[in-house]
């Protein structure tokens, strides 16, 4: 039990630190690396919640594949530091303030509401909860329609990304 709590606090501090790093670091390349660290700590948290398949998918798909896409685009666009502009506008000040108010409100909603009526220790789960076999049978039996819709959405997004990012002859010469 104490091991679980220790792992929760270590992974939680790591995930929060990664999240703060994404927002606070000025070089986009370091932001991407901070997000990779955040995703790996989040996978540890998923393991603590007995979501083994999801943790593996998080590390392989998210931290492995999606982040490589980010690194390529940062290298292509050029990860230059953002210049600090003093005349940043009201949103630069209002954004963090809004986020602080939102976190206070969410904590009140989560901790002070009727959520405490539910058994927050979690129900007992059987051994194969969150295993690839269980996830697979749920995806192909109960959630077949969302599964197929997600696969079509991925296809559409892949084609759309190619169409958006390809070289257009006419436009390039017109704007150059």
């Amino acid at each position, binding site marked *: *039990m104490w091991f679980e*709590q220790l792992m929760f606090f270590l992974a*939680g501090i790591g995930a*929060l630190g990664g*999240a703060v790093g994404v*927002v606070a670091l000025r070089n*986009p390349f370091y*932001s991407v690396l901070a997000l990779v660290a955040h995703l790996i700590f*989040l996978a540890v*948290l998923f393991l*603590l*919640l*007995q*979501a083994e398949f*999801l943790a593996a*998918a*998080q590390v392989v*798909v*998210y931290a492995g*594949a*999606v982040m490589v896409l*980010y690194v390529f*685009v*940062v290298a*292509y*666009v050029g990860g230059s530091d*953002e210049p600090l502009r003093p005349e940043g*506008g009201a*949103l630069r000040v209002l*954004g963090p303030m*809004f986020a*602080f108010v*939102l*976190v206070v409100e*969410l*904590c009140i909603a*989560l*901790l002070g509401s009727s*959520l405490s009526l539910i058994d*927050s*220790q*979690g129900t007992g*789960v059987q051994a194969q*909860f*969150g295993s690839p076999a269980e*996830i697979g049978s*749920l*995806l192909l039996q109960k959630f077949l329609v*969302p599964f197929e819709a997600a696969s079509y*959405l*991925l296809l559409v*997004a*892949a084609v*759309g*990304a*190619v*169409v*958006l*990012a390809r070289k257009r002859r006419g436009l*390039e010469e017109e704007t150059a």
Partner: protein
Amino acid sequence: MDVSWFLVLSAFIFCIGAAGVMSRRNPLVVLLCLELMLNGGNLALVAFARMHGDGGGQIFALIVMVIAACEVAVGLGIIVAIFRRRLPVDVDELSDLRG
């Protein structure tokens, strides 16, 4: 381990992402902060799935990961197109659609 700890952590991650979306100007970093917000939601979904002992929440989190991958692909395509047309890669400068 009390599930509400995970929910509070997910609220923090979501709000850090929201602050980044509103205060950063590089569209790449804005996309990264959107990922943070989606991950905060994912953590809450998995925590609720554990709380109820129901695998549906994990499927929901998996679908959210798919949606995030789609969003990244299209968003990065737009950023590459912006860069190709030699427009400034800065969300404050790209205000042509503002009414």
